[in-house]
């Protein structure tokens, strides 16, 4: 406990000094190509396909609408079973034409339920309910507004913002860190957002800071983001925001990872299995902050985001503002279409992203980047060789794991050993995979392995639960039996007791009678 209090104190100095984290890679970051033209809006497509599955997990929102029904822009069309997950909203006004299965961009599968909307082109908003007087609003109201707006982390993890902020706030947070370091090569949506909507990002920082009850906010940006720093500082000076700072960090992959960023800013590690709030910190993506500003100040739900469309496989890379449900093919078209030698389409960055089987999949909340890569970029798949134990993977691993050992354990199915060696601390950054001279698909193994460990834990938990239930039932039955026995015994006792007492009563009566007789015999006149 003492140690933790100390760590929380030290974490207050976040951003004073820039620290290092273990491993990591200096990658060619290829960001400029998508930052040359300003943000652009994707024109309203003829159809929007809004997936009901927007989160990384597998929990599906239930449709709140029916085919044929008219919807307004921003109206909820899907609600999650867990209310803290918020809603899925209609990105535009129009008519629901179908709720059907179709391609989605989700790591867990290629297809899922989608609400298909035919836009009417009028963009009629539903009644918006902003949070009045937000700089002085109650944190609970802010959180509720964010929840209703369907706000999730836009950095890629898509965890419900209100839940995260609430949990952190309850644990006590002194510093809010806005993560503007995206550091996967190619992705520049956060950079463009900060460049063009700095005011909104700062307003969002203040809202989130108020919602979590922190004293300070730090906006962390990369040292290679050029004008962003000045733009932010200018916007800061223009606003009446206090205790909001901009800190530059060196661009080393994967410092945009929450835990790495914390290490860079504070020199401290988030305890294994713990959360940043254990250090009194909360990390939010800058995109999330901007969305929080939209939700709280204007009452607008989360229905669109900035998406980087980049890579050598697309003609005119740029950053686009796209409504959720817009097919990726429409974004590519907006960027001049594919180059002839395009080979792979990736959702996310080149290190951690998921290859998409089709561009019919729509933009979702998690879609920070669409990458069209050419054969030259990805290279012919190299044959896998045995591990030569060169240790390169361990040298670059930011989680300080021994990937070769993990791989050995994983490929032998020793999931428990792998878990004990820290598999669950793997942040899936892909650094190890990137440098492996034997071309072992380490990242695939670890993603699969983490799934396996989770599944086994769930099975174990289910088995435990079943056992507990069984034991509880046995115990209950035993208790009932015992109870019955006790009761019978008690009754018997009672019965025997009662016969005894009857006897006593009889005796007493007898005594009384005798006494009476004796008295009446002695003094009849009474």
């Amino acid at each position, binding site marked *: 406990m003492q*140690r933790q209090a100390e760590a929380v104190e030290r974490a207050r100095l976040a951003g004073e000094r820039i620290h290092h*984290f273990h491993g990591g890679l200096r990658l060619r970051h290829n960001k400029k190509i998508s930052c040359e033209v300003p943000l652009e809006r994707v*024109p*309203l*497509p*003829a159809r929007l396909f809004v997936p009901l599955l927007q989160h990384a997990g597998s929990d599906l929102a239930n449709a709140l609408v029916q085919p044929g029904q008219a919807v307004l822009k921003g109206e909820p069309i899907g609600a999650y079973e867990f209310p803290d997950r918020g809603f899925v909203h209609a990105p535009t006004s129009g008519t629901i034409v179908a709720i059907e299965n179709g*391609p989605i961009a989700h790591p867990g599968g290629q297809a899922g339920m989608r609400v298909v909307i035919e*836009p009417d082109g009028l963009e009629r908003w539903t009644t918006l309910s902003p949070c009045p007087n937000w700089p002085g609003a109650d944190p609970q109201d802010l959180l509720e507004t964010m929840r209703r707006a369907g706000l999730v982390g836009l950095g890629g993890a898509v965890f419900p913002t209100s839940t995260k902020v609430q949990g952190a706030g309850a644990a006590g947070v002194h510093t809010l860190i806005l993560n503007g370091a995206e550091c996967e090569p190619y992705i520049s949506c956060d950079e463009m957002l900060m460049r063009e909507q700095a005011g909104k990002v700062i307003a969002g920082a203040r809202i989130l800071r108020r919602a979590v009850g922190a004293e300070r906010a730090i906006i962390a940006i990369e040292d290679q983001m050029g004008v962003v720093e000045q733009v932010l500082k200018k916007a800061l000076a223009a606003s009446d925001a206090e205790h909001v700072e901009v800190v530059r960090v060196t661009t080393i992959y994967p410092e945009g990872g929450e835990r790495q960023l914390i*290490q860079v800013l504070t020199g401290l*590690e*988030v*305890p*294994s299995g713990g959360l940043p709030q254990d250090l009194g910190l909360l990390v939010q993506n800058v995109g999330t902050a901007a969305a929080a500003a939209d939700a709280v100040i204007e009452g607008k739900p989360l229905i669109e985001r900035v998406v980087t469309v980049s890579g050598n496989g697309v003609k005119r890379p740029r950053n686009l503002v796209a409504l959720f449900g817009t*097919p990726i*093919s*429409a974004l*590519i*078209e907006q960027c001049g279409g*594919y180059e002839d030698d395009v*080979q*792979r*389409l*990736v959702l996310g960055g*080149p*290190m*951690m*992203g*998921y*290859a*998409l*089987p*089709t561009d019919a999949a729509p933009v979702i909340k998690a879609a920070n980047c669409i990458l069209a*890569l050419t054969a030259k*970029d*990805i*290279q012919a*798949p*190299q044959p896998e*060789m*045995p591990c*030569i*134990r*060169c*240790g390169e993977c361990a*040298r670059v691993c930011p*989680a*300080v794991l*021994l990937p070769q050992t993990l791989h050995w354990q994983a490929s032998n199915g020793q999931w428990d050993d792998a878990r004990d060696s*820290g598999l669950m*601390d793997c942040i899936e950054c*892909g650094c190890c*995979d*990137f*440098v*492996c*001279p*034997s*071309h072992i698909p380490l*990242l*695939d193994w670890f993603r699969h392995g983490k799934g396996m460990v989770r599944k086994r834990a769930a099975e174990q938990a289910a088995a435990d639960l079943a056992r507990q239930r069984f034991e509880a039932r046995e115990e209950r039955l035993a208790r009932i039996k015992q109870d019955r026995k006790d009761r019978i015994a008690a009754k018997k006792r009672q019965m025997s007791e009662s016969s005894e007492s009857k006897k006593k009563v009889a005796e007493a009566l007898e005594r009384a009678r005798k006494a009476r007789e004796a008295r009446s015999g002695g003094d009849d006149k009474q």
Partner: protein
Amino acid sequence: MKPLPPSREFDTSGAPHFSPDVTVQRVMRDVLLALTPGIAACAWYFGPGVLVQIILAILFALGFEALMLRARGQPLRLYLPDLSAVVTAILFALCLPPLAPWWIALTGMLFAIVIAKHLFGGLGHNVFNPAMVGYVVCLVSFPREMTAWLPPVSLADASIGIGETLRAIFTGAAPGGLGWDAVTQATPLDTLKTGVDHGQTVSEIRSAPIFGDFGGLGWEWIANWFALGGLWLMWRRVISWHVPVATLGSVIALGLVAYVVDPGSSPSPLQHVFSGALVLGAFFIATDPVTGCTSTIGRLWFGAGVGVITLAIRRWGGYPDGVAFAVLIMNMAAPLIDRFTRPRVYGEQVGRND
């Protein structure tokens, strides 16, 4: 409203979606390149026999490699060009006396490639350094042939040409029509050992012409060139600094202590470093990733172990040099060392007590 463009299908694959151009073959190629200056120096000081041994060993190694891959049903096209067998062959050949008979290379490669490498599971699975297994087997089985070293060219009465070299290697005929005893000469380490065992002091022994400025004549320059190659490998990040620094560091530290305490029977630390196979071993043999440690702390222990055991064997063992034995012993200890030197995972608390 814009009509929807037609959709397009793509092939998928796991992340990361790009990777630098590193391959096992490239790593091995770098090692070979780094060995070149040392090999050239060897050939310069000890004649063309060095190169003949290397070529012989490579041919045998590739032959056995192909045979074993075929026998184990592994794709030849994938594994044969990975150059790992070639590296093994060269490291082995560099430990041979230049005029050793051809069947030494054959035996050595048989044990190195067939037994130490493939019977343990092939590339990446071998426990012992194959080159050192081959060398030690030959040294123990054929002590006479394995210790028949030539003097450096500058000390020899007459230089031995390529024809005589080949004849000696393939027919066993000593060059120049002389007896073998007349051509061969003990190595500096040999001389030291027998001298010290006979009660001579190191400075007396060192007045012999086979000694150079700080190591053996010729040997010291070969060591320098190997070190140069090794440094280049470090700069290329093919090997990390830990093993060579720990190996050489422990030899120098321990050698210095012995030298200060007992200068009569202990050679100077530099003498240790610059004779025998120590530099080659420190940069190229003990750094073999497959049979070494993987954690950085583990690598320091591994290197230090190699250094200490080498010195111990040179001082008390039955052989003048001990690098090969030291490496094999540390190979055995490597898994254990790795186990005790696992780095602390990010976020894992040291001595968590709250």
